[in-house]
């Protein structure tokens, strides 16, 4: 008799289907692992289970009682708790108060029972890691500690169903061990656990069963009896049913020795060892996320940056664009060293960024397509007291046609466009500039398949004249299909540089998980 059941869950964001008719069941005392590549829908599913997100279709029930979807309080009252991937803590409140945020331990009249709460918080926290300063404001904690507090917060609710969304991403080995002990104890007591993680070792050690999502669909389910069939699971994650830009299935591609250049899509001549170096970086360090990155980029080349989320790829591109401050490191552009001070200087030098979060960093949602496309031109125009409307119109027409941006009229607000077309707008604004290096941070996130192809065509167009591109994408298959060379980042460093025959899924996947290239 399953404890938590969700049937037929569908969730759409604009034109993109995040979850398509997914059903999931968890039994009391069971640990169910949930696996899937970035963008497969795991986080969406877990937030729907916890009531933080309302599905477009589907039902939820706990112990055969129907739950109203999209109501966090109802879910919490029923006994479902979630430890989010990104901790939801109040940064100014002390650690022990954050553990009980919204579920304070009270005496009569809702007055806080501080001593009991501190004691219980200390208990919960020490089960995860020894030695806490309970009074430290949560914002001053390291990422790992914030994650632990988020976990303790979920534990404090003493729920019947506990969902962990990538809890170990930031944790060190000892903390992971403690967490696993805690989870096993909870399962033994009858709690149903959903455990989302990228780390195969943990899934194998902890889970009774594993369910794999791929592109928002249920791809497969398999029991784990001490041994996880990694090959099968990876195959499910890779999406045997997924068809790429060439029309080849990913499985077929994986069998090929060399990763095929998108020669049908990108017409630039393939770079080789004697192409000049467009950009080189050495010893790049920034905060906790970049811990010493080194690589070279040749003219005309498309370099892919692969890695699990949060291992520094986004920070690398931001730093190269002048958007994030580098603590240390040297960068040369066309052989000459360059001091990276501000995005404007970098754009002047020919390095531009297509940012990660197109809504927050790349677009003026309430302004027209034309405004968005023409902004770079407006910023660098020599006669600022007028607008070169003729050349702007030219640029807009060219961009819309070249990138096939689907818009009824260039005066339409960008908000009305689909994700893929919005992304094309972000890319299209660079079309009329002389670019040396184009940095793209996850350009196809939340974009449908057809638009993805068109976007990569756009990247190809921009590299035609000898420009180079660095693309970070969370979908490794795309990188394999599109890029000439690949670097893989793990915990802030480049752990693998792959090209030619080495550019295959197996090598990439093992590098993704930090395993030394076999």
């Amino acid at each position, binding site marked *: 008799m399953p404890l938590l059941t969700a049937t037929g869950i569908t969730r759409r964001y*604009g034109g993109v289907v995040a979850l398509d008719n997914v059903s999931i069941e968890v039994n009391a005392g069971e640990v169910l692992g949930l696996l899937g590549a970035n963008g497969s829908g795991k986080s969406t599913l877990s937030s729907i289970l916890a009531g933080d997100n309302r599905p477009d279709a589907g039902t939820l029930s706990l112990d055969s009682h129907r739950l109203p979807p999209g109501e966090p309080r109802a879910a919490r009252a029923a006994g479902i708790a979630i430890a989010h991937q990104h901790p939801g803590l109040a940064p100014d409140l002390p650690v022990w108060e954050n553990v009980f945020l919204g579920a304070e331990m009270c005496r009569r009249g809702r007055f806080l029972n501080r001593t009991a709460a501190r004691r219980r918080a200390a208990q919960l926290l020490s089960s995860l890691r020894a030695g806490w300063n309970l009074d430290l404001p949560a914002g001053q904690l390291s990422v790992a500690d914030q994650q632990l507090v988020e976990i303790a917060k979920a534990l404090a609710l003493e729920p019947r169903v506990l969902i962990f969304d990538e809890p170990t991403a930031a944790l060190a080995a000892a903390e992971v061990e403690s967490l696993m002990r805690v989870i096993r104890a909870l399962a033994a007591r009858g709690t149903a656990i959903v455990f989302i993680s990228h780390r195969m070792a943990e899934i194998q050690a902890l889970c009774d069963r594993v369910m794999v999502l791929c592109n928002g669909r249920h791809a497969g389910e398999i029991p784990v009896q001490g041994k996880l069939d990694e090959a099968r699971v990876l195959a499910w994650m890779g999406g045997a049913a997924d068809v790429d830009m060439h029309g080849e299935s990913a499985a077929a591609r994986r069998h090929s020795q060399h990763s095929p250049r998108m020669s049908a899509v990108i017409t630039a001549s393939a770079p080789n060892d004697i192409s000049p170096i467009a950009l080189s970086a050495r010893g790049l360090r920034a905060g906790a996320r970049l811990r010493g990155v080194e690589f070279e980029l040749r003219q005309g080349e498309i370099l892919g940056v692969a890695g699990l989320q949060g291992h520094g790829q986004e920070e690398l591109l931001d730093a190269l*664009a002048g*958007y994030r401050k580098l603590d240390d490191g040297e960068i040369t552009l066309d052989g000459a060293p360059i001091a990276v001070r*501000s*995005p*404007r200087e970098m*754009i*002047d030098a020919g390095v531009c*960024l297509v*940012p990660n979060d197109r809504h*927050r*960093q*790349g*677009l*003026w*949602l*309430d*302004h*027209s397509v034309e*405004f968005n496309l*023409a*902004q*770079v031109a*407006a*910023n*660098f*125009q020599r*006669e*600022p*007291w*007028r*607008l070169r409307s003729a050349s702007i119109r030219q640029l807009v027409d060219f961009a819309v046609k070249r990138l096939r941006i689907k818009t009824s009229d260039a*005066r339409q*607000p960008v*908000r*009305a466009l689909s994700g893929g077309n919005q992304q094309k707008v972000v890319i299209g*604004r660079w079309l009329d500039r002389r670019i040396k290096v184009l940095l793209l941070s996850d350009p196809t996130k939340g974009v449908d398949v057809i638009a993805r192809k068109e976007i990569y065509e756009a990247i190809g167009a921009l590299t035609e004249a000898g420009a180079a591109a660095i693309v970070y994408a969370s979908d490794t298959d795309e990188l394999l299909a599109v890029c000439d060379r690949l670097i893989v980042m793990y915990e802030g460093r480049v752990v693998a540089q792959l090209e030619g025959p080495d550019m295959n899924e197996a090598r990439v996947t093992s590098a993704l998980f930090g395993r030394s290239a076999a």
Partner: protein
Amino acid sequence: MSATLTSRRMLLLVLVVLVMVGGQWAVPGFTNADQLGNQLKIATFLGLFGISQTLAMMAGGQGLDLSVGAVATLGGIIGAAVINVAPAGLPVGLPLALVAAALCGALVGVVNGCGITVFKVPPLVMTLAMASLVDGGLIVWSSLMHVNTAASTTLVALAGRSVAGVPSIAVLWLVAGTAVWWFLDRSAWGRRLMATGANPTAALLTGARVRAVRIAAYTASAMIAALTGVLLVGYVGQAFLGLGSGYVLTSVVVAVLGGVSLGGGRGDYIAVAIAALFITALTSLLTALQIGEAGRQCIFGATLIVFLTMNGWSVGRRAMAA
């Protein structure tokens, strides 16, 4: 977006007409030529302060320039003093006064801008504090310097003249308003300002000099306020402390009514100008109906709240449709 633009302009125009018609019915003579001319003059000042507020609000970050009143007083006093001290024979008085006022305004504006961008003081607090400082400084100045700050004949003439029945300062407003409209709608400068205000990150990543743009916006805002102060002296006849203070609240009201977004990056000066006409007509009507300041304050506040909630709903609805 063009549909909402025209609809707001239309709504405000309709309101102006309503007030005019209602005024004429309630108080005969409300719409005769003299009255209209006078109202137009008052609307001019409000419209000019509206430019200041529009620029500050469009620069984003919950931007407001609450120092426009104090800066107008500053400009007015300095301007009047300069004219009166200038040698009588040469026609340099007025230009010098305008330059002096503009420089004072620019100084205050730069300080405002730097405080807001470099020291990250919220615009509200920064401009309010500057206003208090400027007011205090003027108290000191007026107690130390005993300069005649009555409006010179040039200023009075400037403010009083009419061209074919239309007050010349209204023509000035028309020119200024057109310039502002051009600036916002048809120039790269305007695009940079809107981009910076609406999404400073995106602006930064497309090569905008975000800090410089915001400092420039506050500088321009203060300079316009100062120059308007000089004109105001001509209209009122005398420069005095508190000359501009009544315009702070109303300039904000006018900008909000005109649809300038507090979040930054969006605004249409034509709507703001029509809003200035509306508020002026409304104030005249209330005065003609003998409704005192009490009623006016309440009505302004209520109008602002109604328009705010309307703004909020339309934004919310658009966001949901996305």
